[in-house]
């Protein structure tokens, strides 16, 4: 039963991922990416990674894809379709390189697929007796990985500030450069700067 579900979700995942890169409309690509993320979340649930599966839906299919859709609609990219002669050449080259990568992977997987270490039986028994997945991940996250977890918050803060500063645009430097030519006006410039921020 689990195998059948896995194959079904894997098929949805692969087909929708292919449609992400093949569809001409970026808006449709984004919606297929949401479908791909949801089916990947289902695969995580089948693997008994419940916490990761739900975080996948909330963070990826929720937050990140909403950001993508927001930017696509904000820039009004729905009507932009790709075409052109050099594009055909570039696309052919891209497919060729991708085919080489797929061939490499197929060679590795079919040639000498390492079976990997056997599942330790003692750990299996311990995991079966242990509490739920979310609790275990939380315990690990707040004990052994506490320092990386705190670093994560700094990464998010820096990314947030960076995104705001970058997306704010270049309107501010333009008036600041104009009065920079004469010295008396430069003294007045810092007084204007806080006014723009407010």
């Amino acid at each position, binding site marked *: 039963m*689990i195998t059948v579900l*896995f194959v079904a979700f894997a098929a949805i*995942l*692969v087909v929708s*991922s*292919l449609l*992400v*890169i093949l569809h001409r409309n970026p808006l449709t*690509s*984004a919606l297929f*990416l949401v479908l*791909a993320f949801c089916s*990947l979340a289902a*695969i995580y649930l089948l*693997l008994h*990674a419940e*916490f*990761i599966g739900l975080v*996948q839906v909330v963070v*990826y299919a929720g937050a*990140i894809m909403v*950001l*993508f859709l927001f930017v696509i609609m*904000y*820039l009004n*990219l729905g009507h*932009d379709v*790709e075409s052109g002669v*050099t*594009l055909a050449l*570039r696309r052919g*080259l*891209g*497919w060729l*390189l991708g085919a080489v*990568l*797929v061939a490499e992977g197929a060679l590795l*997987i079919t040639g000498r*697929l390492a079976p*990997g270490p056997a*599942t330790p039986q003692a*750990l299996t028994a311990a995991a079966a007796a242990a509490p739920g*997945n979310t609790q275990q*991940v939380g315990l*690990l*996250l707040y004990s*052994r990985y506490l320092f*990386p977890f705190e670093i*994560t918050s700094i*990464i*998010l803060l*820096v*990314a947030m500030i*960076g*995104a*705001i500063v*970058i*997306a704010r*645009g*270049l309107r501010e430097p333009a008036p600041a450069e104009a009065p920079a030519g004469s010295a008396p006006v430069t003294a007045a410039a810092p007084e204007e700067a806080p006014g723009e921020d407010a």
Partner: protein
Amino acid sequence: MIPLSWLLLLSAVLFCIGVVGVLVRRNAIVIFMSIELMLNASNLAFVAFSRHLNSLDGQVFVFFVMTVAAAEVAVGLAIIVNLFRLRETVFVDEINLLKG
């Protein structure tokens, strides 16, 4: 229980789709989506090995990868928005300012 090799195969297929997407598309936003696909392929491999080895460390790593992906998407989309304001395009082959 799902065999580890199937999961790794699916992860490899997903990663290859992401690489092909980065190579063949020229819309910067779709390229970003392909990068997300590759990150998800690595996440799937992490979860698969976490399941196989009965160790939750892989799932914690997936958590960190998701955080970095969220940060990357926020900054990257801000750059794309700014780029669109400056050049009126998001096609990466029209953004050739550094070309000699």
